[in-house]
């Protein structure tokens, strides 16, 4: 058995190791930020300075001259807000049916849903593109990027909601139904509030999915005034050539909203994922 003192020392040692790794993980982000605040000349110095001598915030205003930040911000969130809302709400309905309701074909349909996570999305790229643009004439609109989220945004989210609902005792529903509340009322006023962490996780996952996407946005959106962050940044840094500080200023501005949203939802998020527990 380890003595208390020895155990304490080990904990500090592990904390130190984690700290070193954490700093390594943060280093690229810091390096991008620090480079976005320097002049081209200062970037080329050797040895490099870890902290800029002079904080050139003007790089950001220079980037904003050609990088229409707020337009791209508006466009990106025009996709994200309805998609995340639709995805979360429909995932809750489906997860509820699998967790709480009895119906014929439940097991079969559940397994069919599970199997979809094995179908690589890349395979459906061409047919879905043909369907949205040639079939429905929705090319160069945001609809092909939003409407798929009306289906719960993938099975993982439905599964997550189901897992959480199954941890809530049935007595909660029964008590409410004796009081005369209908199923939908029970779902939205009693069950959803008690699985808030799971709802936050689902919303975050959907957000990250769209936030991370480049391909779908590139193939569906053509007009410049509809560009999202992803498309705009791809084109912007190309046109800016070797002016790294300005290009990195634009890069840093586009990664910022995600970090802010994460910090806001962070507490529920970590709690939610940890409680998921993958196993039944």
């Amino acid at each position: 058995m380890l003595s208390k003192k020895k155990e304490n020392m080990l904990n500090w040692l592990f904390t130190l190791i984690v700290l070193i790794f954490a700093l390594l993980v943060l280093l690229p982000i810091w390096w991008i930020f620090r480079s976005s605040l320097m002049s081209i000349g200062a970037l080329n110095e050797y040895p490099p300075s870890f902290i800029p001598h002079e904080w050139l915030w003007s790089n950001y205003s220079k980037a904003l001259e050609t990088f229409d930040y707020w337009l791209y911000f508006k466009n990106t969130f025009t996709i994200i807000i309805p998609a995340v809302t639709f995805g979360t709400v429909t995932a809750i309905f489906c997860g509820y049916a699998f967790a709480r309701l009895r119906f014929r074909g439940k097991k079969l349909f559940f397994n069919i849903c599970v199997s979809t996570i094995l179908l690589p999305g890349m395979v459906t790229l061409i047919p879905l593109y043909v369907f949205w643009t040639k079939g429905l004439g929705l090319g160069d609109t945001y609809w092909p990027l939003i409407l798929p989220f009306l289906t719960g945004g993938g099975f993982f989210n439905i599964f997550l909601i189901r897992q959480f609902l199954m941890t809530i005792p049935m007595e909660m529903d029964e008590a409410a139904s004796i009081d005369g509340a209908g199923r939908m009322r029970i779902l939205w006023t009693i069950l959803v509030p008690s699985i808030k962490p799971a709802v936050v996780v689902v919303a975050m996952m959907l957000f990250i999915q769209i936030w991370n996407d480049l391909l779908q946005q590139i193939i569906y959106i053509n007009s410049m005034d509809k560009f999202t962050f992803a498309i705009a940044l791809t084109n912007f840094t190309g046109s800016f050539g070797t002016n790294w500080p300005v290009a990195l200023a634009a890069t840093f501005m586009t990664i910022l909203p995600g970090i802010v949203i994460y910090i806001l939802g962070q507490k529920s998020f970590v709690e939610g994922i940890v409680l998921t527990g993958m196993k039944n």
Partner: protein
Amino acid sequence: MRKSKTKTVIKSRAGKKEERTAYLCLIPAFIGVTCISYLPTLAVFVLSLFEWNGLTTPEFTGLSNFIRIFTRDIYLADSVKATIFYAFLAVVGAVLYSLFIALLLNMNIKGRTLFRSIFFIPYLLPAIGVFKGWQWLYESNFGLFNFIMRMLGLPPQRFLDSASQVIPSLVMIAVWTSGNLIVIFLAGLQNVPRVYTEAAKIDGANAWQRFWHVTVPSISPVIFYNVLTALITHLQVINPALALTNGGPSKKSMFMSYVIYLYGFKKNKLGYAAAYSVVFFVLVGIFTFILFKTQKSQIFGEGE
């Protein structure tokens, strides 16, 4: 037992109503399964038998797209090689890295919540921002990594511009952004009953034995889930080619997904791109099948 009970419930009027509610709730999932997953997958097989530029009427050409892919395609060999090489390294790298970090974070360390968030941050940066940022870190003259190389007294490298280093360099980025795997491992580790590890400790097992004989078997479904999703994700790799390399240098990062994109959207050969998607689908299927053969554990059990 349970089955007969379910049947009697469904026969009753309340049971009928319950069933109706269930089907209504599941409409989104049903549409998703059919219209987003299965029908398009079927459609890709049909489309692969046509030649179509997206404007004129599609022309049925039978298997000629496939014959062309396997005999005269300029990308096939390179793209299969690049995809498998990348996916293999990325899965191994990301799974080992995230398991290692999750094990550390599962220990009794100070500031756990803060560290957990830090390791997750790279995952939620938008792909394009990550790649543009790392392009600068990999820059051959003044990038961070070459500064480090020089400090260590090593010759500077060309990273993304080098045919032999481009895939490992891109894998580094994939490993860095695998915070989602860490979170899932962490969830699995917290479900390992403490009594098991304590009991093993009392029996005199050292840290390595405890890890190998207690922790690993208890989290094996989680390991399998992470390997499976990482494999499917990384076989579909396309963002680095779109954002950074355009498949180069010398086709070393010409991933299969990127080739589908090139044929479909740059060369407007939709039928041919569909045939390429079928080939890709089969490849992913083979790898998934092999993985399932190695482990039969059920992750998404339908328990009540």
